[in-house]
């Protein structure tokens, strides 16, 4: 008997089954997390082990529950925007955009093309932020430290771009209902392009380092396979769903914020394993770079807010301080919030992690009556009990890394 067959996973499972009666009572339950480097936050996994094989896994979430939905019901729409930063805090600006789009949908409000293009650039920068971290820590989970250094350095540059644009590196709170807080600063678009020029070779370098790396391939190919049916049944979205071969990308299928004006591909996987999820994210990084270039190139002139939305958008400070009309508008909006009509809307956007949805029930006025946040990470994590059953302990960090979740969004 060769040595290889002695240590194969199939053999271990077979042997386990064979001696199950002897091993009965020998199962061990361990806790991974809530504070563990492999769980990327405060996820806790209660794992029951039979030797090296996971027999049962129960994810415990909620350690970061802050009651965002309750908070939203007690403040005006614009006041809630800073809270959306703290959902998927890996790419915070995308949450701002998604929330604003949801509220604008309720108000049947269109923003000018320039605002849409700015938002698209923000969304794609957020996607780069999220995927660069996701790919970096995924590499680290499989034992490749270097990739993380490369991607984190690039992310840092996005933070600097965000700082120029919004005044904050991390908690951006950039959008408003009916527009964005301010126009892009002078020279910012050029800096974005310069950043992309620098990012492209780094992406290729990461690609060379890991995509054909023998060790990485051995650890990820065929590991953590999610079938198309499971992915749909468990409500997976985003790169995790697309890696399982379902071509759902709302940017293409239900375009919002002017995404129909840009050309991009939607990469999908064929096997739904950890390796496919890596490939899909790698390709999405390239597509995002291309979308940002197109958006910068076609950047329309005009206003960055809808100036007809007098009961929704707070006018720029220069106008508030010089004109009576705008001063009153400012006062009313700050005290009462944007006046949105009665009704129910459900809006989802293609966030870096998957579909982030806001279900808003409004009774009119400045405060939502009910606001539900459909978070992609919450749904993506719900598949863990099924996915981790029967895998080796050493594969858990790889599978978790490949799912790329964030607990701020999962627990809300």
């Amino acid at each position, binding site marked *: 008997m060769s040595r290889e067959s002695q240590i194969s996973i199939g053999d271990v499972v077979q042997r386990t089954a064979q001696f199950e009666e002897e091993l009965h009572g020998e199962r061990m339950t361990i806790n991974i997390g809530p504070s563990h480097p492999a769980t990327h936050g405060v996820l806790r996994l209660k794992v029951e082990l039979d030797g090296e094989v996971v027999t049962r896994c129960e994810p415990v*979430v909620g350690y970061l529950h802050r009651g965002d939905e309750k908070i939203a019901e*007690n403040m005006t729409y614009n006041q809630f925007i800073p809270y959306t930063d703290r959902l998927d805090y890996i790419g915070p600006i995308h949450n701002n955009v998604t929330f604003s789009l949801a509220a604008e949908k309720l108000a049947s409000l269109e923003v000018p093309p320039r605002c849409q293009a700015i938002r698209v650039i923000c969304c794609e920068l957020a996607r780069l932020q999220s995927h660069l971290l996701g790919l970096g820590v995924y590499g680290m989970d499989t034992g490749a430290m270097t990739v993380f250094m490369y991607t984190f350095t690039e992310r840092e540059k996005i933070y600097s771009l965000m700082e120029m644009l919004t005044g904050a590196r991390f908690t951006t709170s950039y959008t408003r209902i009916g527009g964005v807080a301010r126009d892009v600063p002078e020279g910012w678009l050029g800096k974005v392009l310069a950043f992309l020029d620098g990012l492209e070779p780094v992406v290729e370098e990461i690609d060379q380092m890991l995509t054909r790396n023998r060790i990485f391939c051995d650890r990820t190919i065929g590991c953590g396979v999610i079938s198309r049916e499971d992915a749909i049944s468990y409500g997976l979205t985003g790169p995790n769903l697309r890696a399982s071969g379902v071509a759902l990308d709302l940017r293409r*299928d239900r375009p919002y914020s002017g995404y129909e004006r840009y050309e991009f591909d939607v990469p999908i996987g064929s096997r739904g394993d950890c390796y496919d999820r890596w490939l899909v994210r790698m390709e999405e990084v390239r597509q995002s770079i291309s979308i940002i270039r197109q958006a910068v190139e076609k950047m329309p002139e005009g206003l960055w807010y809808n100036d007809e939305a007098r009961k929704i958008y707070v006018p720029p400070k220069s106008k508030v301080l010089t004109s009576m009309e705008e001063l009153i508008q400012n006062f009313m909006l700050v005290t009462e*919030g944007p006046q949105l009509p009665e009704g129910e809307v459900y809006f989802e956007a293609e966030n870096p992690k998957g579909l982030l949805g806001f279900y808003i029930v409004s009774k009119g006025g400045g405060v939502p009556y009910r606001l539900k946040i459909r978070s992609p990470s919450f749904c993506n994590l719900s598949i863990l009990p099924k996915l981790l059953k029967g895998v080796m302990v050493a594969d858990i960090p790889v599978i978790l890394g490949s799912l790329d979740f964030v607990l701020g969004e999962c627990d809300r």
Partner: protein
Amino acid sequence: MSDELLTTLMERRTFLSARPSADHPAVNCPASHLVAFLRDLRDAEGFEMLLDVTAVDWAESRRPRFTCVYHLFDLERSRYLRVASDCHEDANPTMPSVAGLWATADWHERETYDMFGIRFEGHPDLRRILMWDGYPYYPLRKDFPLAGEETDLPGADVAEHTDARVSAAPMAGGPFVSGTSGGPMSEREPRAKDESWTENAPKPKKPDPTKESS
């Protein structure tokens, strides 16, 4: 397009009624037909994905008090459908579980139970998910205050050792939200919603906390 979908859906199903909606087509479905209807939508109408399950507490404004809301998605035609279903009883709301149709409903229904106290009948493992086991309140109900309620610490051993309790947030009567509309401006300025307690005058104790019914 949305009207077309609603007409076809409602043609053969007299139990449905159209629901006012600002965006996607929406229907009301009685709880007794819910599971069969959703299975039909999944298998025959192409709504393959269940994206979200949640509930709304209408408090005093409507009877029945709780409504469960399901958002379905058609992958083929990229369209949404909202299905809403009222819970019969206000005191002990229940709803049939759809966890047998979509695995994702498992966690969504646990969350809805956790936040609203709606029991999903037939759910394989209906436990709290975001709050800890044994937490006595349902936080997203409208009668639960934003600041929270005083309650026991999750770990009894730790609580005994430290004598600590979970206390309500010190919001000094907040949150400071303006009234929405009507009345003179002075009444609508941002102010504490609940002015019965401040930093100096503590919050009055509730007589008896709503115990979790089991």
